């Protein structure tokens, strides 16, 4: 491992310096933080779950109600009203797509098109639907967490860490790679 001798005669690993810089932008740190909080959540499981049925008995909810639930049918509750002016909503959507396209063109790496992302979103929501119908609560978080693609946490972390724009771009690339690897791991 190459060593760097500084002016004061102190030997410092050059790679250590590099590691220190990457350490801030390393997205795996975020992952470790998340897993640490997940470990904290595990402690919450000690709560006696037998109290919950009594607790919710008067709510009018039951597990069987989910059988009637569908992504296209939420008849148990009032449905959201239609937008009054479809042309205005369509114009707003086109405006958002246009700003998204300019943002994607400015990124230093290739991204999926909105249509491809739409297809992937439908796939994920389909899996969530299957998990909910089968009441497989242990598998559901794996798919619901994939929805975080659409709300990348980079901005929050970068602002919190005080990163500048170039560091933000590097962090964003690392984040995109992390998301891709997570998605592959989940699919496999």
């Amino acid at each position, binding site marked *: 491992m190459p060593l760097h001798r500084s002016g004061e005669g102190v030997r410092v690993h050059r790679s250590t310096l590099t590691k220190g810089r990457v350490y801030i932008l390393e997205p795996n740190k975020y992952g470790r933080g998340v897993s640490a909080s997940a470990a904290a959540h595990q402690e919450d*499981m000690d709560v006696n779950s037998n109290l919950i049925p009594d607790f919710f008995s008067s*709510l009018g909810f039951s597990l069987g109600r989910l059988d009637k639930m569908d992504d296209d049918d939420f008849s148990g509750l009032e449905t*959201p009203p239609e937008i009054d002016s479809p042309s205005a909503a369509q114009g707003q959507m086109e405006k958002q797509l246009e700003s998204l396209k300019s943002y994607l063109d400015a990124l230093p790496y290739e991204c999926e098109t909105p249509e491809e992302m739409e297809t992937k979103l439908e796939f994920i929501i389909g899996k969530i639907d299957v998990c909910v119908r089968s009441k497989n*609560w242990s598998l559901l978080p794996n798919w619901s967490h994939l*929805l975080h693609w659409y709300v990348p946490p980079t*901005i929050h972390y970068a602002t919190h860490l005080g990163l500048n724009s170039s560091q933000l771009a590097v962090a964003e690339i690392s984040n995109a790679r992390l998301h891709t690897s997570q998605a592959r791991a989940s699919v496999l």
Partner: protein
Amino acid sequence: MPVSTRAKLVRLFYELALLPGVEPRLIRSWVDDLSRILANKGDAPRKIDPEDLQLPWKPLWRALRKELWPKKRAYESSYVS
């Protein structure tokens, strides 16, 4: 993500969070997902307008009422004059 899809996902996680007999860890996870899908980032425009999504408040209120003011409180008699 289309507004209608976002609204339906929020509604799904809302109903899931109010399901009885589910581990608190899962409920917390679903509420986190709900807020992540629903919440705004800083000064960004709203992802969902009130006319796009209206959730019923009564089930949530009943759950909170049972949690905040339990009927069988051990020291309830001390408050009765």
